[in-house]
């Protein structure tokens, strides 16, 4: 073998604390290394050309690049060696940036460690074998999980691009959080007027199949060939017959249940269509409050339904959908404001969340768009908004900024003045965060044109006095304590990962952060990809986002899916496990431990043997450490290669 070693400066990132020339020179002493050099930027065009030229001139048969993490540039260099005529797996990377130069300042020690890492890479490369991917067909259907605005956008873009789309929504209607909003910032246009048509498009698009009131039960398969089991929860109404006429809601005798769609500030019936523009506009029975279920007798809805759609004996149903890609767009939930007892939410009815206030402002809300406070139905005159409730607060383990609260609070202050001209709004804030087109201008308008009084400081306590709420806080600009007598207190509850997000992430086999938000593949350059091929993200499931950002990500995820599906076949990664049939004793341990069901049992000359399903294996290597015979080996990471690496390190 003829090995070439290229040691990258990465500008001063590596060269600053590693003597790359010494690393290159020393590597010439390693077995089969015939060429070594340091290079300014190995990943740049001249850098890659240098590698290609050296392969050709020095007749290299394998290449080691000592530079950064393989997560970013391993594909880059593999393509480069392939262009020079080598197999792309005759290449190894030594990470001397993240693992060396960035974490230590001692130049001599760093140089020595870099030499060791190159030595390891060389020993592994000497045992590399050329590998070739095989091709497999893909199923050009896409599943979107979550029918909020991000998911709707992704579904419509994919469907308009000609793909078949399966949209799965947990609630009985799509629309997500945006459907609950009255107006949107910074244009103050009606939320349901701009979202409604998109929702109708989803319903009418012949390429979109909608599973509402459904959840993802399990996910099998791999990019191009996922099998998703979707649990369609029992609605107790036959949706093929339900026309959404609402007769059942009118007659339902159980009328005093908290209305989830209206953020529990209004009552609703046990059989319910959440709002007039719901898609699908179909009724659902809540068995926890329905008299037929709780008391065993009622049946009013079944009597009044003109199409006979009521089915009290309905059960959950599992349907399987085969898709080639999945977009997670599961959105967010609100911080539980009762976790801050000093603000009194839960104890005092006139302390509400900002989303509940949206429902009070909305013409389709429980008060018909007339702002009435929950306790006594009076119109509030003094409204206090408290920002960062469950955001930017380490003590609550919510150190992150929810991003959109400054903007919607300004919007709500403006709308309050529109609804109640003689009202006064107060906003307690930490900092006003309004980056975005026309955003800062908007918050200024709330102050200057609509007279909202912004007080920079935190609120210490909210308590009732007579029929007022006293809001006591600090004015840190004036350096004083302030007390405001409020009729209504609106808490800008922070955004949290949606309920069940970590469980879904585990089904999707994608990572999530400690707060439950899904991890993108790269925070800057791969914002809608995940580390699982064929799974993409859109909207607030990745982190709090406002509507324009969510829509942008919905389209971005759709573009990724369309690009993926522009090919008829995908190449499988050849770095997978292979069974040495002579050694395999058919014990089946590998089959039990494989997390991807990628190993099956086969009969070979009357004996049981394990066999790896090439397209399903993800190359995790768990089977190789399980096999008592060492009969199953992960290509490109064989036991012999790993032992050679260890030996190289220990004998150096």
């Amino acid at each position, binding site marked *: 073998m003829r090995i070439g070693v290229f040691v990258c400066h990465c500008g001063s990132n590596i060269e600053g604390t590693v003597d790359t020339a010494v690393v290159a020179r020393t590597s010439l002493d390693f077995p089969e290394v015939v060429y070594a050099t340091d290079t300014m930027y190995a990943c740049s065009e001249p850098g890659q050309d240098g590698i290609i030229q050296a392969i050709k001139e020095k007749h290299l048969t394998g290449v080691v690049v000592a530079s950064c993490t393989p997560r970013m540039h391993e594909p880059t260099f593999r393509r480069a060696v392939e262009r020079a005529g080598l197999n792309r797996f005759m290449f190894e990377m030594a990470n001397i940036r993240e693992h060396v130069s960035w974490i230590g300042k001692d130049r001599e020690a760093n140089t020595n460690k870099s030499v060791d890492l190159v030595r390891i890479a060389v020993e592994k490369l000497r045992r590399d074998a050329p590998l070739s991917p095989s091709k497999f067909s893909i199923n050009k259907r896409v599943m979107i999980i979550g029918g909020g605005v991000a998911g709707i956008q992704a579904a419509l873009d994919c469907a308009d691009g000609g793909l078949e789309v399966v949209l799965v929504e947990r609630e009985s209607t799509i629309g997500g959080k945006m459907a609950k909003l009255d107006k949107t910032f910074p244009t103050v246009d009606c939320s349901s007027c701009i979202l409604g048509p998109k929702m109708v498009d989803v319903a009418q698009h012949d390429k979109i199949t909608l599973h509402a009131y459904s959840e993802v039960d399990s996910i099998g398969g791999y990019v191009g060939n996922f099998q998703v089991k979707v649990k369609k929860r029992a609605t107790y109404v036959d949706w093929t017959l339900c026309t959404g006429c609402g007769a059942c809601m009118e007659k339902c005798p159980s009328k005093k249940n908290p209305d989830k769609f209206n953020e529990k500030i209004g009552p609703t019936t046990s059989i319910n269509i959440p709002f007039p523009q719901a898609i699908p506009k179909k009724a659902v029975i809540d068995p926890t409050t329905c008299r037929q279920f709780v008391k065993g007798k009622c049946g009013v809805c079944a009597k009044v339904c003109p199409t006979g759609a009521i089915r009290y004996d309905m059960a959950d149903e599992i349907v399987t959908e085969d898709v080639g890609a999945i977009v997670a767009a599961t959105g967010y939930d609100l911080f539980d404001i009762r976790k801050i007892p000093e603000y009194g939410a839960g104890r005092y009815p006139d302390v509400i969340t900002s989303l509940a206030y949206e429902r009070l402002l909305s013409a389709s809300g429980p008060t018909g768009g007339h702002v009435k406070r929950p306790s006594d139905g009076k119109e509030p005159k003094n409204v206090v908004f408290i920002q960062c409730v469950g955001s930017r607060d380490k003590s609550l383990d919510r150190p992150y900024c929810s991003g959109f609260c400054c903007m919607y609070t300004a919007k709500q202050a403006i709308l309050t003045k529109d609804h109640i001209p003689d009202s006064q709004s107060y906003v307690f804030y930490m900092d006003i965060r309004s980056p975005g087109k026309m955003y800062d201008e908007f918050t200024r308008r709330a102050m200057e044109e609509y007279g909202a009084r912004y007080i920079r400081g935190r609120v210490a306590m909210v*308590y009732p*006095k*007579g029929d007022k709420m006293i809001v006591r806080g600090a004015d840190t600009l004036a350096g004083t304590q302030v007390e405001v007598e409020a009729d209504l207190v609106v808490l800008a509850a922070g955004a949290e990962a949606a309920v069940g997000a970590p469980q879904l992430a585990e089904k999707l086999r994608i990572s999530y952060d400690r707060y439950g938000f899904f991890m993108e593949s790269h925070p800057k350059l791969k914002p809608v990809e995940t580390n699982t091929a064929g799974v993409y993200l859109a909207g607030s499931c990745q982190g709090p986002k406002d509507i324009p950002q969510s829509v942008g990500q919905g389209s971005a995820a759709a573009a990724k899916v369309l690009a993926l599906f522009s090919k008829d076949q995908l190449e499988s990664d050849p770095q997978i496990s292979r069974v040495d049939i002579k050694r395999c004793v058919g014990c089946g341990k590998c089959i039990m431990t494989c997390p991807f069901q990628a190993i099956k049992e086969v009969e070979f000359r009357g004996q049981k043997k394990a066999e790896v399903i090439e397209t399903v294996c993800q190359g995790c290597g768990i089977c190789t450490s399980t096999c008592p015979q060492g009969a199953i080996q992960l290509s490109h990471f064989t036991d012999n290669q790993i032992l050679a690496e260890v030996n190289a390190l220990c004998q150096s």
Partner: protein
Amino acid sequence: MSEAIAYYPGCSGLGTSKEYDASTRAVCAKVGLSLVDVPDWSCCGSTPAHTTDHTLSAALSARNLQLVADMGMKLAVTPCPSCLTNLRTANHRMEKAAFAEKANRLLDEPYSGGVNAQSVLQALVETVGLDALKAAVRTPLAGLKVACYYGCIMNRPPELMAFDDCENPMAMDNVLAAMGAEIVPFPLKVECCGASYGIPRGDIVARLAGKLLEAATLAGADMVAVACPLCQMNLDLRQGQVNRALGASYRIPVPYFTQLMGVALNIADADIGFDKLNVDPRPVLSKALTGAQ
């Protein structure tokens, strides 16, 4: 059930809050909590000690904690939240070896550690339990509307006091509800009454105590039940000063919660000691109790 617990009355228990001490002893005896006085106990140093010198302050409390250890006991209860804060703070600080060594140098007998301090309220709720308290009631306080005022240090700082909700404590509410009283929602349960500012800055106490009395009145309370000698003094003894400063005319009784328990448990009037209070609770009490019958 009889449980022996070391009892640390605190200095105010011998003076300004004699009735708190007496009613505490009588109530505990009635519900089977046998209190054993810490022999030769000394002052916890109160506010002057810990504002002057942390080591001295901790040494004062550590001495008392060691006396409890010498009794072979692991738990001391005290009615006074200020004493409790000092005892618990001393325990916390003495966990650091370097600090403990400095404080122990001031003591004849070094503190060996391992003695926990609790409020009487906590012992009643956790050791006796609400069911047992309820079972002991002889004269339910039916019809009596009570606002429960815990004061600012009974539950705070929460990491140190480790009892009840620090923003919306419920222990006293639950105890007096078990006695049959009607608990009114009182939003200022943990507000400051002005504490020892009563001496140098009476105006501050007038404003803060006035706010509490106003909130209790608005909440519809017949009385404000308290658990702290200093709160009691500021709200009751200084009620006239508050009225003069604010041009108000409050006349709300401010008994200790143990005194109200005493009524419910049929404890002798002498042990309840309503005659020690400035605003006499008895007229309001008898009116409420007869009204309920």
